[in-house]
C-alpha cells in the first residue's frame, strides 16, 4: 500500500481537533499528522509538517480561516477542505473560501453517538483523497471578486422562457457556477433549475452569492416558484426538486422523497421530471462532480428529445459525473466550462421547435390539472 495522505487539521475548537482526527482514523490511507488552533499556528505547522491536505475551520480568533487560506494558496498551494458550520455567516464565508481556491467543503461533524457521523466521516475521507489526488490548488479561473455586484437589467426578458435548462453539479460546483453565471447576459431567455449537492443551510447563501455575480435573477427555490426567463432556481439542501409544465411556462415543486444515489437533492430526480414534463424544450447539463448522480437522468432527457450537455473532463475539478454520462453515450455535446455560458445563450435564443404551441396561449385557460382540489 502506498504512503497514507498526510492531513493537517486547523480548528479553534479543541473538540474538533480531537474529533476530526478520530473519525479519520478508520481510513488507513489517511494520516492526521498534526493539528493547529488558529491560522498562524496552522501556517507554522504547514512549514514543519508538509501536509498534503488541510482541513480548515473558518471562524477562528487571531488569523481567521479566510486569511489563512489566502496565505496557504499564496505560499504553499496545499489543497484545503473547509469544515464549515451551518449558519448564514458560515455559508457566506464558505463560498468566499471556495472562491479563494479551497478545494471543497464539508459540514461540521454532528452527533458523535449516531450513524450520521459515519456519513460525514466517509464524505470527508473521500474529499480528502480527491483533494490529495488533485494536488496543488489552482485558483479558479476568472472568478468575479467577492465584492463584485453585477448590475441587473431594467426588466426581465418578456414572454415565456424559450427552454428549461436543468443543471446537475457537485464537487467544484460553487466556483464553476459562479464562473458560468457571471457570463450569462441579463436578457438570457431560458429558465434555469440547478441541483447542486450541498448540505442543508448552505444553499440560500449560495443562491445569494450567485445572484450577486449574475445578471440574471438567482434564488433558492420554493415550492410554487415560477420558471421565468432570466431566472435561476437553486434547489435547497436536503430536499428534492421537480418541475411541472404549465401553459405559463412552468413551476417547481419541492419534495421530501428519500435520498437517491446517496444524495438529496439528487440530479436524477430533477432530470427525470424535466425529461417527462419538458421533453424537447429541455436542456440538461451535467457538470463537475464526484459520483454518478445525474448520468441516468441525462440519458432520460436525451431519450425524450431534449438537448444533453456534459462538461468537458479537463475543465472539471472532479470529472466522474460527466464522464459517467459520456461513457454511456448520454451526452449530445461535451462543452468546456469556458464555453458553457455561450452555448446556453445560443440554445436559448429561440424556443425549441415543438414548444411553440405550448407557450402560445399566455392567458389562463383553465386551472391546471395538478392544482385542482
Amino acid at each position, binding site marked *: 500500500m502506498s504512503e497514507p495522505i498526510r492531513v493537517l487539521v486547523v480548528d479553534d*475548537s479543541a473538540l474538533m481537533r480531537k474529533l476530526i482526527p478520530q473519525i479519520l482514523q478508520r481510513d488507513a490511507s489517511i494520516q492526521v499528522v498534526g493539528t493547529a488552533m488558529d491560522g498562524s499556528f496552522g501556517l507554522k505547522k504547514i512549514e514543519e509538517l508538509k501536509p498534503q491536505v488541510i482541513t480548515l475551520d473558518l*471562524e477562528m*480568533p487571531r488569523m481567521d480561516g479566510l486569511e489563512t487560506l489566502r496565505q496557504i494558496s499564496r505560499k504553499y498551494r496545499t489543497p484545503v477542505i473547509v469544515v464549515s458550520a451551518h449558519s448564514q455567516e458560515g455559508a457566506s464565508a464558505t463560498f468566499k473560501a471556495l472562491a479563494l481556491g479551497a478545494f471543497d467543503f464539508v459540514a461540521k461533524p454532528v452527533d458523535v453517538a449516531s450513524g450520521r457521523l459515519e456519513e460525514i466521516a466517509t464524505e470527508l475521507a473521500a474529499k480528502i483523497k480527491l483533494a490529495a489526488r488533485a494536488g496543488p490548488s489552482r485558483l479558479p479561473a476568472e472568478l468575479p471578486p467577492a465584492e463584485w455586484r453585477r448590475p441587473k437589467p431594467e426588466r426581465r426578458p418578456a414572454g415565456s422562457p424559450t427552454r428549461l435548462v436543468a443543471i446537475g453539479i457537485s464537487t467544484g460546483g460553487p466556483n464553476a457556477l459562479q464562473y458560468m453565471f457571471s457570463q450569462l447576459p441579463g436578457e438570457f431567455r431560458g429558465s434555469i433549475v440547478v441541483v447542486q449537492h450541498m448540505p442543508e443551510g448552505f444553499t440560500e447563501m449560495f443562491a445569494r452569492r450567485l445572484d*450577486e455575480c449574475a445578471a440574471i435573477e438567482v434564488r433558492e427555490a420554493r415550492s410554487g416558484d415560477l420558471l421565468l426567463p432570466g431566472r435561476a432556481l437553486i434547489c435547497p439542501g436536503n430536499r428534492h426538486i421537480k418541475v411541472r409544465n404549465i401553459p405559463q411556462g412552468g413551476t417547481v415543486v419541492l419534495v421530501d422523497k428519500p435520498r437517491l444515489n446517496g444524495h438529496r437533492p439528487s440530479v436524477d430526480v430533477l432530470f427525470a421530471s424535466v425529461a417527462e414534463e419538458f421533453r424537447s424544450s429541455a436542456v440538461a447539463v451535467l457538470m463537475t462532480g464526484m459520483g454518478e448522480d445525474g448520468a441516468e437522468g441525462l440519458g432520460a432527457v436525451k431519450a425524450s428529445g431534449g438537448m444533453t450537455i456534459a462538461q468537458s473532463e479537463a475543465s472539471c475539478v472532479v470529472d466522474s459525473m460527466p464522464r459517467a454520462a459520456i461513457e454511456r453515450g448520454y451526452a449530445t455535446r461535451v462543452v468546456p466550462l469556458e464555453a458553457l455560458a455561450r452555448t446556453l445563450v445560443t440554445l436559448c435564443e429561440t424556443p425549441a421547435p415543438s414548444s411553440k404551441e405550448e407557450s402560445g396561449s*399566455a392567458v*389562463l385557460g383553465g*386551472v391546471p390539472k395538478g392544482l385542482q*382540489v
Partner: protein
Amino acid sequence: MNFLPDDRAAELRELFFESAQELLQALNEAGLELEKHPADEECLRGVRRTVHTLKGDSAACGYHALSELAHELEDVLTTELVRQAGGALAEVVLSAADTFHAMLAAYRDNLQPPSGEELRAHIRRLIQKPEQTRSTASAEAHFDWTEYERLLIAEAASRGLAVYNIALMMNPEALLPAAALQLVRNVLHSSGTVLALHPEDGTPAEHVGVVQAALASAQPQDWIADRCRIPHVVTSAIVEKIRSEEVVEVEEDALQSLLGAEAASGARANRPVTTAPEKRAAAERSSGTGAGKSAASGSAENVLRVDASRIDAVINLVGELIIGKSMLHRAISEFDSRFPKDPLRNKFAEMSGFQSRVLDELQKSVMKIRMVPVEQLFRRYPRIVRDVAKLLGKDVALELAGQNTDMDKGILDALAEPLSHVVRNAVDHGIEPPEQRIAAGKRARGTIRMNAYHQGNHVILEVSDDGRGLEREKIVARAIERGVISAETAGQLSESEAFNLIFESGLTTAEAVSEISGRGVGLDVVRTVLERIKATLTIESKPGKGTTFLICVPLTLASIQALLFRIGGRLYALPLAAVTEITRAGNEEIHRVEGREVLQLRDKILTLMRLDQLVRGAPAATGKRQLVIVVGEADRRFGLVVDSVAGEEELVVKALDEQTVGNGLASGASILGDGTVVLILDIAALMGMLSRVPVLEATA
C-alpha cells in the same frame, strides 16, 4: 450502531464539557465588556465566535437543544445589532451564558436540559425592537401564496373577476375533522373558481387549524362569507376582496413577461427589477481578524491537557525521591565518619551533589506543571460583582491586578469558593449604597480591588474595598452577645483578632441579613477552607475608609523548606520562611508581664511560648541560656523556646488526619531520611493558642 466506540465518545464529551466551561467564561467576560462598551464590534465578533464554537461542539456531541439555541443566538449577533440594541445586547449575552450553563449542567447529569425559552424571548425582543412599528400592520390574516398561485390570482383579476382571500378557522372540536374539511372544500368549490387552497390535499385533517383559499367569484362578498360560516365546522371566517393593484404590484415582473405588456398596463409599468441588495450587505460582512485581547488567552499551541491526578502522582513520586535523597545523605555522612580517609568519600560527595541538583530542578519543574496564573481564578469575579451589585442597587467597579501571578492549581481551585464569599461580602457589607457614599463624601461608585503577588514562599491575595470599613466595637459586642468570646478576652484582642471574629459562625455585622452573604455561614466556610489549605487571613480595616482582606497562601502544599528543632526530646519543624531569627536569651532577659513570659529583643517585646508546657505540662528546661526561635512577622511575632536546633531540611509534607492531630498544633508531618517522623507546627494555630491561653499560670 455507533461509529465511535463508547469510550471515545465519552472522552469527547468530557473534553466538550471542559472546553465549554472556558467558552462560557469567555462569554461572561465579553458580556461584561459589552456592558461597558456597548458599541464594541470587535467584542461582539468575539462573542459570535465563541457562540459559534459552542454551537459546533455541542452539535458534534449530539446536544441539539443547546446547539440550536446557540445557532439562534449566533444568527442575530450581527454588527448592526450593536448599534441598535446597545446595552440590551450585554444583557442577552450574559443571560445566554447562564442559560448555556444550566443546559450544560443538565446534559452532564443526563437530565432534560431547560428549554431556554427565556433566552429565546430575550433574543426575539432584541431583534424585534427596530421593527416594532412595521410588523403590527399586517397581523390579522396573512396570506402567503406561492408565485404560481399569485400568478393565477393576477390573471383572474386582469380578466375582471373579483378575487377573494378567504381564511376559515376550523372548529377544533368538530367530530369528524376529515369530513369537516371536505365540507369546507365543497363549499369553496361551489362558490366560484378556487385559485389557491392551503393546506393542500393529503394533509392530515386533524392538524388543520385554518383553511386559506383564494377564490375568484361573481358572487358578492357577504354571500360568500355566509356560505363559509358552516355551523359547528367553521368557528369564524374572514373574506376580503383582493384589490387588483395589490396583486399586480407584487407580480409585475412575472406578469409582464408572461401575459405581455398590455395585461399589466393597468398597473404602474416599467419599474426596475429590485433584488433587495440591502439585506445582503448584512450577511456579507467578513468576520475580521481581530487580535485576542486578554494576555492569558494567548496561550501557546502545544498545550497538553492532562488529568490533574496524573501530575499529582508524579509529585508524590518526587516527594519520595526527596526522602530518598536525605536517606542517601545520612548514609554518606555515616560512611564519612566511619572511613574518614577512604577515597570513595569524594566520589560520594560529588555524586550526591549532582543528584540533589537534578532533583532540585526536577522538583521545581514538576511544581511548575501545577502552576497556573491567578487570572484563571480572578476571571470569575467580574460577573459576581456585577450580579451582586445589580441586585443590591449598588454601583461597584472591580479592579484586578497581578493576574499573572502563578499559583498551584489545586490551591487555586480550593480558593475559588472562599474568595467569592469574600468578594460578595465586600459588595454586600463593605460598599455602601450610593446615597450613603455621597453623604460620606465619597464617589458614588464603590471600588473593589483584587490583587495577587508573591511574597517569599507565599502568594498573597488581596481583596480590598473602599467601603464603610469594619467597626471593632460592633463586632466584639456581637461576639460577646453570641457567646463566641468572653468579655474578659475581648479586651485583650488585637485589632486583627477582633476583625477575625467575623469568621466565627453565626456572626454577621450587617443589620439586615441578605441572601447574598448569607447568615454568617459564608465567612465561616471561608475560614474552614483556608485552614485546610494552610492559608492565613488577615483583615485590615479603617472605619469609613474600607477593608482589606489579605489571604496568605503557601505557594505549594507539597514540600517546604523547614527548620528542625527539638523540644523535650521530640523533633519538630517549622516552615523556614516563617522563622525570622534564632537567638539565645539568658534567664535574666526573660521577664513576666501579665502572666506571660516575654523577652526584650533589641527594641521589641516578644511573647515567649514553651511548647512542652503547652503540650504535656512538663517542667521547663533549666538551661542557663534558652534557645529562642523568633517566628512570624511584624506585630504578630512570638518566640518559641526550644532545646536545640537540629538543622534545616526540605520536608515533604504528608497530610495528617484529624485523629492524628489531637491538639491541632501540627499542620502536617514528614518522614526524614532515617525514618524519623517529624511534626510540622502550624504557626497560625500556635498564635491562636498564644492569644487565648494564659501561658504562665501553669509555671507560676
